[in-house]
């Protein structure tokens, strides 16, 4: 009980409602305040590592009241959200000067952070849904923030598909409540463990997978992402691709499937197949893109496939009753890739924003030779590209290596082959970005291009340093504190319920 968990939701929420009161004159004060809020959230997230706890809001006992649960998986996600939102907020300080109504932007940004932190901490499925809606609604507005024709269209498409996903989740919550008589995840899990799955609960599980799959943009449900992510302002693209689809999609899916319903062989296969489909389809679609942000958005789908694949493989091994160490390895790979992807994909989107701000275009065909004009952007983009493609010293390599090891050890040789093959495709698409954006001839109209300055550079360099250093998370001291507890939450499966009720 040492960490007052509601502060993770209260800080961004209070900041969000405080900011618009400043109005136009207090724009700088509002910016500083928003940055302070994100930095304090990052500090709190770092402080929460290694702690666990259940917080009863208003001191109402668990099955009656709302409760927040902090465990390894939550604190891993909190850390990712903290890092990415700090960097994106820092980047927005200069980048969002192009747009009007900056304080409204900051307010929506903080609402989105509040929603994501809430989803990650929530201990009952209805509050999970409420926070999911807060984060989603804020993101719909942020995607259409530019108010251009294309952005509004993308925002509308995102809103329709996102609302369908939310309705699925709400419907599933109602079904679960009707069949188990509880909304608390721990109690639902207990009820399912003792009473087994009936038809209603099975349908609810299917709805949960479809709903969270829509939020995570796994392949059959991915149609909104390639429009929504490129249309948003660059820091928001970074937030959406970096953490939103993970907190709202993958985290919630993993929590429901592993900790509440319990993993089965069929569910393990389902996640594995969804992961592989996303990986391959996303990669193929990305290679053909000429819009730099659209390419990165498709690549997000592909990279998220790795995460889901890792979780699915791990679940499959657990459900078959094979060696638990292999399952841990697969899930470790998946979760490590989740954190890595949060860092390098948000960095890639920030660099794309830097390029777009300097050149005024997102079309790779109209760029070229930017390496000499924008050295820092080029360097950070190269680091992130190397990381996403899995080139050895950078972070992406290690998580993919672990996934390959896990797949081979568990006997899934073909999965290992697909992982390596998609990695190659990723290398091709990012070589394309490097070649067309940074190398080659500098077009006439871009002779005056200037490197971005100030906070934008700080944010990019910060994330680039993390990209290089993330491999260190595998050092035993850090791994035992950050990654292992998260893996253990998932491998423990439905004993989550006993942990929460017992604490």
């Amino acid at each position: 009980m040492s960490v007052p968990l509601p502060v993770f939701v209260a800080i961004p929420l209070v900041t969000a409602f405080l900011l618009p009161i400043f109005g136009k004159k207090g724009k700088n004060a509002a910016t500083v305040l928003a940055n302070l809020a994100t930095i304090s959230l990052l500090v709190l997230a770092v402080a929460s590592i290694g702690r666990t706890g259940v917080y009863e809001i208003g001191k109402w006992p668990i099955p009656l009241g709302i409760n927040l649960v902090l465990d390894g998986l939550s604190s891993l996600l909190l850390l990712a959200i903290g890092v990415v939102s700090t960097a994106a907020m820092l980047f927005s300080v200069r980048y969002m000067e192009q747009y009007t109504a900056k304080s409204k932007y900051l307010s929506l940004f903080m609402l989105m952070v509040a929603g994501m932190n809430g989803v990650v901490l929530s201990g009952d499925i209805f509050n999970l849904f409420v926070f999911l809606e807060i984060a989603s609604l804020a993101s719909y507005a942020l995607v259409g923030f530019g108010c251009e024709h294309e952005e509004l269209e993308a925002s509308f498409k995102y809103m329709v598909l996102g609302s369908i996903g939310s309705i699925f989740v709400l419907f599933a919550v109602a079904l679960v409540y009707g069949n188990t008589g509880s909304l608390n995840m721990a109690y639902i899990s207990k009820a399912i463990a003792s009473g087994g799955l009936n038809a209603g609960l099975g349908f609810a599980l299917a709805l949960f997978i479809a709903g969270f799959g829509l939020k995570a943009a796994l392949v059959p449900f991915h149609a909104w992402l390639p429009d929504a992510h490129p249309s948003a302002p660059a820091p928001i693209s970074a937030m959406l691709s970096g953490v939103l689809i993970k907190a709202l999609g993958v985290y919630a899916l993993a929590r429901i499937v592993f900790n509440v319903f319990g993993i089965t062989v069929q569910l393990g296969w389902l996640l594995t197949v969804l992961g592989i489909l996303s990986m391959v389809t996303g990669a193929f679609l990305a290679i053909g893109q000429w819009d730099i942000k659209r390419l990165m958005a498709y690549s997000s789908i592909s990279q998220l496939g790795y995460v889901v694949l890792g979780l699915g493989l791990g679940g499959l091994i657990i459900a078959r009753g094979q060696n638990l160490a292999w399952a841990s390895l697969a899930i470790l790979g998946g979760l490590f890739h989740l954190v890595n992807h949060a860092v390098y994909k948000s960095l890639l989107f920030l660099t794309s924003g830097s390029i777009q701000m300097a050149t005024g275009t997102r079309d790779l065909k109209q760029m070229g030779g930017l390496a000499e004009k924008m050295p820092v952007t080029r360097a950070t983009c190269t680091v992130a590209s190397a990381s996403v493609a899995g080139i050895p010293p950078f972070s992406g390599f290690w998580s993919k290596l672990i996934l390959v090891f896990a797949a081979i050890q568990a006997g899934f040789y073909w999965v290992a082959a697909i992982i390596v093959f998609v990695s190659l495709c990723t290398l091709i698409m990012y070589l394309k970005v490097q070649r067309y954006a940074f190398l080659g001839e500098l077009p006439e109209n871009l002779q005056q291009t200037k490197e971005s300055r100030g906070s934008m550079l700080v944010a990019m360099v910060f994330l680039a340093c993390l990209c290089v250093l993330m491999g260190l998370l595998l050092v035993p001291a850090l791994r035992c504190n950050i990654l292992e507890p998260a893996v253990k939450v998932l491998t423990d499966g439905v004993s989550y319920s006993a942990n929460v009720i017992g604490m």
Partner: protein
Amino acid sequence: MKGMTIIVKIISGWVKVLIFLFGIYIILFGHLTPGGGFAGGVILASCYVLLMLAFGREFVEENLPLPLASKLDCVGALAFAVIAILGLVLGGSFFINFLYQKYLPGEALNLISAGTIPLSNLAIGLKVATSLFLVILVLSMFRPDMSGDKKE
């Protein structure tokens, strides 16, 4: 939008006070009778909608300008959050009813009772009234722009 006929204007001029009072009553007695912050807030907003229909949008905008409404909207939400945080500071747990437990137990079924709940109702009432008002105002405002878009 110039508003409706003189009959509608005069009648709604009389009725608006009653509606407004009723909304405030629903909010204030939220912890004792059916209703509460949300229902009362909707009634307050509907009073403004009536005025908007009867007298036209400009009249309402003069009465409650958009920036002011937007700020009140934030103040309502902020007040609600502050009550929750005061619970953490004074009562030891987020959202705990610290007034009821420590300072002002009050007697059941009195107006001043139930601790922080009437305060929360007030905050929610302000939030719901202003945000619903804003939604309707903004929806009525953007109609000309939409038709302009279609011509392109």
